[in-house]
């Protein structure tokens, strides 16, 4: 052999990087790094039984009323994108967090962090979107706050909304309630929002006909709850995608979720973009979809109710809850084989080839 390769001795390998001592972008991904941050730094300081449930919203009892309460901050780039903008997201996102607890959303707060130099025109456009989105969702913005930070200390505009809603006494939805034998329903196509944002991002621009699916889901949820009391839990698979929501349910309920790859609806444009960028649509964000775990035998009436609603027209069964690999989500591939749908560490990164 002519080469000076050292193949015959075990070489190599980097030392692992010491546990990070500062925030990285991946801590905001909704994946494993986010969970670790929550578990190790945020929750220990605050522990209480309501927070520890880790649902999308807290449900607290006040003088006999069940009040749902949630908050969310929006840091999207670009601020405007096909299908919506940061304003529509900020309203729908918080409305949806309330809706996933089965609440009727009522009031929102709105906090704006404005970067020095942000054009009034941009702010006006966003405020108009917030007005329209809250009118459509039937919620009222009743309080707010504005802060301005120096140029370079913000990304134009950050928005925080908090929301309050009411939950009726017979509704109990939570990620720890899934049981083997339950069915998993999905309201429509996945990945639309995330691919829309990615296609607009600096350095990755590509032409695409896809637009964000941002929408308020509480009407759909109300119809589902009316159709059946057999819904165990609801999640809107936003950041981290369908996979992260289902992994959360599998872990919290200590069950396994088995998905059918061929049953998960994905638009051709989204699939195509994912193929091109080396991304998995199961991890791409949605802003107007929900996933439901329901008791067996109730799925027909719930699916029927979903399909009657404009936001649930493509609703279908995508999987079942089992006890075979507790805490894990698996996927039956098109080839009939099985693989894990893991919780990602940080953000999904476009692959090199």
């Amino acid at each position, binding site marked *: *052999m*002519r*080469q*000076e*390769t*050292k*193949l*015959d*001795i*075990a*070489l*190599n*390998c*980097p*030392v*692992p*990087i010491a*546990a*990070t001592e*500062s*925030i*990285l*972008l*991946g801590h905001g991904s909704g994946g*494993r*790094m986010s969970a670790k941050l929550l578990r190790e730094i945020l929750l220990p300081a605050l522990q209480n039984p309501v927070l520890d449930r880790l649902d999308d919203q807290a449900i607290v009892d006040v003088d006999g009323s069940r009040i749902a309460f949630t908050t969310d901050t929006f840091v999207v780039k670009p601020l405007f994108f096909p299908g919506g903008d940061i304003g529509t997201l900020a309203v729908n996102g918080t409305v949806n967090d309330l809706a996933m607890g089965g609440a009727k959303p009522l009031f929102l707060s709105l906090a704006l962090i404005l970067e020095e130099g942000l054009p009034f025109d941009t702010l006006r456009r966003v405020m108009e979107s917030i007005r329209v989105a809250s009118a459509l969702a039937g919620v009222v913005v009743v309080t707010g706050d504005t802060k301005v930070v120096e140029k370079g200390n913000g990304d134009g505009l950050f928005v925080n909304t908090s929301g309050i809603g009411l939950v009726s006494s017979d509704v109990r939805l939570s990620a720890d309630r899934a049981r083997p034998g339950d069915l998993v329903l999905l309201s429509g196509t996945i990945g639309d929002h995330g691919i829309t944002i990615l296609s607009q991002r600096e*350095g*990755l621009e*590509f032409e695409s006909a896809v637009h964000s699916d941002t929408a308020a889901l509480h009407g759909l949820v109300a119809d589902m709850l009316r159709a059946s009391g057999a819904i165990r839990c609801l999640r809107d698979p936003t950041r981290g995608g369908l996979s992260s929501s289902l992994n959360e349910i599998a872990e919290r309920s200590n069950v396994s979720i088995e998905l059918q790859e061929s049953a998960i609806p*994905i638009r*051709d444009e989204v*699939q*195509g973009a994912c*193929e091109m*960028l*080396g991304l998995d649509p199961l991890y791409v964000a949605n802003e107007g979809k929900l996933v439901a775990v329901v008791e067996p035998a109730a799925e027909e009436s719930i699916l029927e109710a979903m399909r009657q609603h404009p936001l649930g027209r493509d609703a279908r069964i995508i999987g079942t809850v089992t006890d*075979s*690999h507790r805490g*894990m989500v*698996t996927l039956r*591939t*098109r*080839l*009939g*084989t*099985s*693989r*894990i749908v*893991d919780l990602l*560490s*940080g953000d999904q*990164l*476009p*692959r*090199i*080839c």
Partner: protein
Amino acid sequence: MKYLDEYRDEKIARGIVAELGRRATRPWVLMEICGGQTHTLMRYGIDEMLPAGIELVHGPGCPVCVTSLETIDKAIEIASRPDVTLISYGDMLRVPGSRTDLFHVKAQGGDVRVVYSPTEALKFARAHPARKVVFFAIGFETTAPANAMAVWQAKREGLGNFSMLASHVLVPPAIRALLGSRRNRVQGFIGPGHVCTVMGYREYEELIREFRVPIVVGGFEPLDLLEAILMLVKQLEEGRAEVENQYVRAASYEGNLLAQKVLREVFEVCDRKWRGIGGIRESGLNLREEYSAFDADRIFGTEGVAADEPAECISAEVLQGLKKPMDCSAFGTRCTPENPLGAPMVSSEGACAAYYRYRRHALTAKANR
């Protein structure tokens, strides 16, 4: 989805597997070269479908994984400078260098950006003349032409604030090194489809003359890989050793001549160190002397940066197909994608990461039995 679902059809896949079962009269050890192929094999559980005697081992074709530690260290050093914007492909940011990675450099205030094509880096350099824009160019022959084109274009435009930290690697020398190792057990190769789309597969004939081992250029979809495996097994069973092309819809004998021309214009072959393997002679591409004004390594004086890779994980064995990721005692415990001990756990195309991401449940199922 049209043009994709056709390559993921269960019935056809089962048909090929049945045919494999009929053809294979004895065990065979095959290697797929490309990380992208490893990814597909794991993602679709293809190794699970194969007849028992056919073993797949996973080659060194993950460009992110095999980029040497010192190259990563150079990128980190350059990206840490306040006047530099370092631009790269997404998954390079996570790769650990000796002490840190580019994500951490970014968190400390370094200007590190992700693009999908080097032309985006050029665009950025034009728009930000006060920044020193460095494109971190890694990859096999697949990405080399586009990177070459970016440098060629920068020279033509006289774009003085653009440069490239180039660390390309070449497939044929790596196969030669694997086959020349006395511990080699690979009997046939699934050739790198994308690399051959650029380079053609002429140069693989020489390997076959030297080592008498069948090579089938394969694609990246499940049926591509199954068909390539079947073609390899047929050759082996019939005692043939030829280069065959399964990936006819993209790869050809001559390859993309224009891309090769650009590549030769800007790059020249050099010796290269591979992470997890070691030095392989004439296995890399560097910028030619005529383009040295765009060589970030020279501009920022990082030529002297050296790093020793401590022996800790078994990635040399994994990358040669001597061991499976799950044979490693650190797999999934001390070594995970969050905290990779070695190269193959770093990128989603690395063998260990692919096993971790898609096949861990098989491991727990085994442990529970």
